[in-house]
């Protein structure tokens, strides 16, 4: 992962150098106002090409792999990490990777949550989250978002939620869920739904989130949402996770795999549970909440994947 990223960065740097050269040549000659010479277009195309190249390496959501696949990655790596993976092996049997495109947290959440519903067929949970989604819609309306800008994304998520419940004409299998999660026209729309929900929650409780956001980025809440939550490909931090978990009332466990260790020399894997707060909701009603984590994510600095318990 780290290495791939470095290669990607190096390659991008190489490309941008080429670009500068090209631009320099271009500006001395360019003299027609055709769309064809429109540089923005080229930048976009190049961006898409890089994305397509990445797509070959790993789909948005990967296959389930045994935890040994994770160990194999660090075979000649840090002994602390190796030790921690061994510890993870006591509780977890498998990992499912997601593409490192800046949307990995939301993509993990999407797949892990829908898979949980597919397997549990928990009708009460579906009703509960639907009520919360309705609340999120009201939040965005109250914040002044035009409904037509977000309604398609909401509709598509609710459609997925319906279809993982079995016994309907539109019901889907686990394989189909995986296929859809890899299909950009579904997957990106659901990710965008989560981004809207997250942004709405952060802005609704701006006072609560403000100190955390200032600590992260020195931006105003408004600016943070516009720059770091709503645009696709912007990475998630604990602010995003807290907000999404609160807004939808879904608890998330995150296991941290990094090189930190205790002074005593003993190694343990830190984890954090994001348990939705039930205290303040917009109209005084208490949002229903599932307090037990329904998913466990593996965090390695800069990236999230899904973990499966034994």
């Amino acid at each position, binding site marked *: 992962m780290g290495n791939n990223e470095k290669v990607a960065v190096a390659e991008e740097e190489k490309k941008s150098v080429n670009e500068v050269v090209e631009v320099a040549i271009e500006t001395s000659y360019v003299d027609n106002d055709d769309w064809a010479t429109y*540089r923005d277009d080229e930048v*976009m195309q190049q961006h898409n090409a890089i994305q397509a190249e990445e797509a070959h390496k790993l789909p948005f959501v990967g296959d389930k792999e045994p935890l040994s696949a994770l160990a194999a990655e660090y075979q000649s790596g840090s002994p602390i990490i190796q030790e921690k993976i061994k510890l993870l092996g006591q509780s977890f049997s498998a990992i499912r990777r997601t593409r490192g495109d800046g949307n990995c947290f939301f993509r993990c959440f999407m797949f892990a949550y829908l898979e949980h519903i597919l397997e549990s067929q928990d009708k009460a949970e579906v009703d509960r989250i639907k009520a919360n989604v309705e609340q999120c819609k009201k939040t965005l309306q109250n914040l002044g978002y035009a409904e*037509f800008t977000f309604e398609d994304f909401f509709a598509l998520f609710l459609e997925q939620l319906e279809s993982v419940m079995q016994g309907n004409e539109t019901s889907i299998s686990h394989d189909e869920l995986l296929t859809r999660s890899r299909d950009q026209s579904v997957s990106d729309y659901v990710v965008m739904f989560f981004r809207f929900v997250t942004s709405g929650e952060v802005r609704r409780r701006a006072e609560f989130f403000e100190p955390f956001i200032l600590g992260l980025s020195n931006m105003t809440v408004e600016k943070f949402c516009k720059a770091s939550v709503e645009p696709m490909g912007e990475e998630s931090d604990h602010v995003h996770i807290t907000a999404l978990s609160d807004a939808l009332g879904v608890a998330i466990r995150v296991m941290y795999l990094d090189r930190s260790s205790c002074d005593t020399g003993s190694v343990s894997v830190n984890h954090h549970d994001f348990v939705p707060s039930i205290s303040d909701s917009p109209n005084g009603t208490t949002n229903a909440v599932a307090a037990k984590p329904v998913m466990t994510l593996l965090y390695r600095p800069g990236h999230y994947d899904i973990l499966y318990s034994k």
Partner: protein
Amino acid sequence: MQASRARLFKEYKEVQREKAIDSDIQLVCDDSNIFKWTALIKGPSETPFEGGVFQLAFSVPEQYPLQPPQVRFLTKIFHPNVHFKTGEICLDILKNAWSPAWTLQSVCRAIIALMAHPEADSPLNCDSGNLLRSGDLRGYQSMARMYTRLAAMPKKG
């Protein structure tokens, strides 16, 4: 493709409704192609663009609204963040800060805001950017006003 078409149709209806409220922006869809739009925007007051009417061309990609529209000035404009020849606009929401929460209409508003608040540190038009960065506000304003008169105002007589 279908999703972008449906979204653009909603924006079309919204534009018809907002016409009366926002008289600074006239957004029109191409008769035969919903992916091509043009806009006429009024230069903001108390700027060198005041009194001018500027034409923008929108080209909307099939992945809209997950991807931003491409927008450029068709009317010549002297502004640090607009390419003097191609009309290309340097604005973060048209690139990496884009999100589907923006609309063609709100993009127009953002461009009007950019006209009033140029970012001299990320210039596409270096001559314009250099005037501002060297503190020659008078020089910048007179150049910008001249081009507004030449290109963005109806010819007299």
